[in-house]
C-alpha cells in the first residue's frame, strides 16, 4: 500500500510495530503546526494522530510521559539546550497513564525553560472537576473529554497559530469560565463553542481571557450534578 507519510495507510502489523514507540510524520515543514501527542493506548494514539493530521498538523505520537520528555530533550535534569530543529506547537496528552500521568508531564513541561510556553492540552475519559481544576491551575490550555472528536481538534486549531504563543505569556493560568470548553458541557446536549472562541484570532484571545470575571468562588456545580450526565451518551440514533 502506498505510504503517504501518515499512519493510516500502513498495514496493521506495521502500525503495531511503530505504535509501540513513536508514530512520526515526515520531516517538519516549518510552517506547519507540529503536535506532540502522548497516550499509552495504541488505539487512541492512532485516532488522535489521524484527527490531528486531518486538521493539517504534523504529529509525533509517543506512548508515555517519559518518551515525551525524551523527545523534548527534557529527560535529564541538566538545564535544557535549545533544540532549534524541534518546534513543538502543542502538546496533547492523556491524563491517566501508567508511570507518569499527564498531570505530571504537564508540570515538567511548565517547569522547563524551553517548553513552558507551549500550550498543553489534557485528555481524559473522566469528567472529574478536581482533576480538571488541577490541570488548568498547573497551566493546561484546555481539557478534552474522551473520546475526542474532530470538532474538538478543530477547536484547538483555531487558537493554535504561531502568534498565540507570544500572547500566551501574559495569559492568566486559570481560565475562570469553564463553559468555554465545549467538550465539558454542563448541560445536555453540549452547546456549540461560543463564537468568540472559534473565530478568535491570536490577539483577541488575550482580550477574551482578560475580560473574564476575576477568580472567585467557583461557579461550577459540584461533581454529583449535571456533569455526570456527560457519561451517558445517547446511542448514535436518537
Amino acid at each position, binding site marked *: 500500500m502506498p505510504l503517504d507519510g501518515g499512519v*493510516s495507510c500502513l498495514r496493521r502489523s506495521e502500525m503495531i510495530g511503530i505504535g509501540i514507540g513513536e508514530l512520526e510524520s515526515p520531516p517538519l515543514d516549518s510552517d506547519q503546526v507540529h503536535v506532540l501527542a502522548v497516550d499509552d493506548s*495504541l488505539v487512541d494514539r492512532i485516532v488522535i494522530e489521524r484527527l490531528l493530521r486531518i486538521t493539517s498538523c504534523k504529529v509525533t505520537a509517543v506512548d508515555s510521559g517519559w518518551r515525551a520528555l525524551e523527545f523534548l530533550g527534557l529527560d535529564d535534569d541538566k538545564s535544557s539546550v535549545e533544540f532549534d530543529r524541534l518546534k513543538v506547537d502543542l502538546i496533547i496528552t492523556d491524563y491517566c497513564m501508567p508511570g507518569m500521568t499527564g498531570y505530571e508531564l504537564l508540570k515538567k513541561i511548565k517547569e522547563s525553560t524551553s517548553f513552558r510556553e507551549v500550550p498543553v492540552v489534557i485528555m481524559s475519559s473522566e469528567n472529574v472537576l478536581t482533576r480538571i481544576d488541577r490541570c488548568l491551575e498547573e497551566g493546561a490550555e484546555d481539557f478534552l473529554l*474522551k473520546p475526542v472528536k474532530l470538532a474538538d481538534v478543530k477547536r484547538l486549531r483555531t487558537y493554535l497559530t504561531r502568534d498565540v504563543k507570544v500572547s500566551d505569556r501574559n495569559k492568566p493560568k486559570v481560565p475562570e469560565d469553564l463553559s468555554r470548553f465545549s467538550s465539558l458541557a454542563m448541560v445536555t446536549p453540549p452547546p456549540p463553542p461560543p463564537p468568540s472562541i472559534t473565530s478568535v484570532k491570536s490577539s483577541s484571545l488575550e482580550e477574551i481571557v482578560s475580560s473574564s470575571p476575576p477568580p472567585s468562588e467557583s461557579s461550577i456545580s459540584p461533581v454529583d450534578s449535571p456533569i455526570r450526565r456527560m457519561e451517558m451518551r*445517547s446511542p*448514535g440514533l436518537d
Partner: protein
Amino acid sequence: MNTVVVAQLQRQFQEYLVSLYQQGFLDNQFTELRKLQDEGTPDFVAEVVSLFFDDCSKLINSMSRSLGRPESVDFKQVDSGVHQLKGSSSSVGARRVKNVCISFKECCDVQNREGCLRCLQQVDYEYKMLKTKLEDLFNLEQQILQAGGTIPQININ
C-alpha cells in the same frame, strides 16, 4: 459499472449500518471515525477496529488469568484492564462493549469476583459479536468498491 447493482449494495450497506446503531452496537464515536476516512485512507476504520479487537483479546486473556484463582485475585490488574478496555471501546464507538465495562468496573470496585467473571464473559461475547458484524459491514464496503461504486456517507441523527 452496473449502477443498479451498486445502488442495491449501497442501500444494503446503509440499512446494515443503521441497524448496528439502532441495536446499540455502535454509537456516535463510530460516526466520528468514519469521518476520518477518505479515498486516500479507505481502510482507516477497519485498521483501527482491528487494533481494538486485538486489544480486547489480549486484555480479556490477562484479566482472565488475574481472576483465575479465587484465593488470589489481582483486582488492581483487572481494574487496569477494564479501564483500558473501556477507553478503547469508547474511542471506536463500540457501545455495548463499553457498557459492559461500566458494570465490570463496578464489580471490580467491590471486589466481586463472580460478578467480574460474568462481565468478562459478557465482554468477550460482545466484542466477538461486534467483530462479526463489522466484518460483514466492511465486506459490503468492499463489494461496493469492487462494483465501481463509492461508500455512502451516512448521516446518523
